[in-house]
């Protein structure tokens, strides 16, 4: 069954089983693997995407239900890591293994779109659906507050305060997977 929707600002049509969860359409059919599989039951938040601006767990969202809707995934949040949440995540150096971070970032971005300067209690409420097994929660909280400050601020990278002098510069770069024969 052909289903049409908008994916990261572009029209998209897929012809798949209407019951197939959006997660697997993104990952296997469309090859967009930034959205992660964690539990398949809406328990961990690794698969979080935006549907019409709301944070939604794509692992329990049948593809038939997104017909005509606007979907944003981690790949579409910004073209160049310039979304305030991504900037804050880089500034605070949030990720460890990084596997849950697409979902964390999408949940945080949805929160900040509604609430520019969320309180700690509001962060708890919006983020408690996202598990991080590396336990980066303290830095996630810090980065959400920071992203709140960055929203609407000039595009220039913000200072980190006390750490600024000791933190080395980081330019976006590639990490290669080796093992070539």
């Amino acid at each position, binding site marked *: 069954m052909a289903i049409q929707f908008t994916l990261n600002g572009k029209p998209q049509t897929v012809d798949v089983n209407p019951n197939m969860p959006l997660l697997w359409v993104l990952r296997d059919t469309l090859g967009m*693997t930034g959205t992660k599989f964690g539990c398949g039951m809406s328990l961990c938040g690794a698969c979080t995407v935006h549907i019409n601006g709301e944070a939604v767990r794509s692992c329990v969202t049948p593809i038939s239900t997104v017909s005509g809707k606007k979907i944003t995934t981690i790949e579409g949040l910004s073209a160049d890591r310039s979304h305030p949440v991504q900037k804050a995540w880089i500034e605070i150096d949030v990720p460890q293994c990084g596997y849950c971070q697409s979902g964390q970032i999408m949940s945080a971005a949805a929160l900040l779109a509604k609430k520019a300067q969320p309180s700690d209690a509001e962060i708890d409420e919006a983020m408690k659906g996202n598990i991080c097994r590396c336990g980066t929660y303290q830095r996630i909280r810090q980065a959400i507050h920071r992203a709140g400050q960055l929203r609407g601020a000039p595009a220039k990278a913000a200072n980190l305060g006390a750490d600024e002098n000791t933190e080395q510069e980081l330019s976006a770069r590639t990490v290669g997977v080796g*093992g*070539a024969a």
Partner: protein
Amino acid sequence: MSAGTTMRVDRRNFLKTGVAGATGLVIGFYLPGDFEALAAAPAGSAAPAALNAWMRIGADDSVTILIDKSEMGQGILTALCMIAAEELECDWKKIRPEFAPTAKEYINPAFGIQGTGGSSSVRSSWDPMRKAGAAARDMLLQAAAQKWGVAKTACRAENGVILHVATKRRLTYGSLAEAAAKFPVPQDVPLKDPKQFHTIGKSTKRLDTPDKVNGRAEFGIDVRRPGMVYAVVERCPVFGGKVASFDATKAKAVPGVKNVIQISSGVAVVADSTWAAMQGRRALDVKWNEGPNGQVSSDSISKLFAERTGQPGAVARKEGDAASAFAGAAKKIEAVYEVPYLCHATMEPMNGTAHVRPDGVELWLPTQFQTISQTVAAKIAGVAPEAVNIHTTFLGGGFGRRSELDFVAESVEISKAVSAPVKLTYSREDDMQHGMYRPASYCRMAAGIGADGWPVAFTSSIACDSIMARRFPDQVKDGVDETSVEALANIPYAIPNILVDYQLTVAGIPVGFWRSVGASQNGYFSESFVDEMATAAQKDPYEFRRHLLAKFPRHVGVLDLAAQKAGWDKPLPAGRFRGIAVLTAFQSYAAQVVEISVNRTERTLKVHRVVCAVDVGRVVNPTNIVAQSESAVVYGLTAALHNAITISRGRVEQTNFDSYPILRMDEMPVIEVHIVPSEEKPTGAGELSVPPLAPALCNAIFAATGKRVRRLPIRPEDLA
């Protein structure tokens, strides 16, 4: 590993790594993540010059650092680049990390195989990486000196250029690399005085963060290959059970399902998407031979352990004569402690991608153990180990689980059967119910307290299954598996009579390395019981430890730092309570003070603050030591508050994150991490701060309620 072995440039490896880096995109070589920068490199540009097994320098001044440890969140990729850059004196902005292939140059000297674990990465790479950087720098200096016709000593290396000091002439590393690579690799180049370090010891941002904020970091589960099919496996719910028979008729009728095949561990369903494979699996009808474990339960295992600890075991440590000392003691205390099996629950479920061809195997693996994966794959595929090529991806968490081989063997078996590249994915339920668990363990302890209030005897009898008996049997010596007794057999307290014995008890549940291994349970046993001793002696738990650790300055260092930062000498606000613990693990030292409040009516607990002190020797990346300590505290806290893998009829009862909850944002305490400055050799931080959390927390609960928590996880009745 000798310096000579470390530094020799293996010709085969030189060609291998050189070709991969230079012509990757041209030949369709696989690269994860954001490869725009590489794609923009002019076609046909010269191959980067390999100065040794870890460092390649391109004509464009790029410095590729081969990372021979798996990056599972612990920040090793960045730490290794920092160590290399310190001696190489390259431009940090030009560094490009790349995961190393599987080759003898990359064998972890701590293990004798290529692999990551045991908090050994910085410790084992420190010397090789520094020496490699220094030797490569020397080769660049020689190349510049030769070009200018000056003495090498008249030149200096800094920030990616060689400078002729007198004339201020400069040549970039990129312009010298090809000539430098032709020099023999020098031996024993003097290493920098740590006082000159500009990179090591400075908080440095992780190199993998940019790829981890836009979805481009490629984990094993993200691998895609041309012609790839997707697989899931139905395994026997009882450990050790086998397929008796199966009917695939309905499964094969599911749209997208291509094959249903029997493999060693169960029945594999192969399809054109992961979801279709999962649907096909639900339609499978499998009959099992459950084997000998069908009646095993958590209760039966606990009873078995209790019986075994009543009998003398293999002696792990004996000092003095504990039995006689008890007879002369003023007071004797006894306690039984117990912990359950625990699952790793990495966020990325187990997976592996294999392509078995007649002449060899390509594997894309989120693995901690490359060498053994290679061996296992070679055996299944019937090829030589050298014909198995492993591409190590990012690991979405490891914690020891990814040192296992189940996902490797299964993906190779399936690919061999269907003659296509196959990606095998575990569901969360598969991952949780078919793991290799932190051993459940049972521990009887006793202490004799002398008339002066100081302990005169300590005994501990442990029963649990052995990790080493399953993984590396020759490591079980005289009935003792060190991982079963660590953090108990080596307690440093000044107690004259000590007996620690061990009953290796096979319970039918596979056990494996789990972040901090034996220290995860034995640290809880020992540091809780030491607190019981302090109570029996009517002494302050911090002062009691401090007195008995007088001969162990690094223990005292972290203990004092944690106590001081937590304000141990100051009273807490009403309703707040705290506990303390200190131990050594993985050659590092940690102490923690946990601050809590307890609502005894509601039987609830809030953890407000965890103050950590760590001594990991010389620190490579301070911000990462902080991050790892925070991470370990959350890992330990999750287990203490929430987690048990329980067994019924030989099956794991937990299925997903609803029955095996992970700590979430709203339960998160404030974590403060303090690092003891040190010039000792660097050691690891990835596991260190897991074990002190449970005892410090339970000691705080005792302070609040007057009741000891002797069984994990903490239950509501423990808080009444």
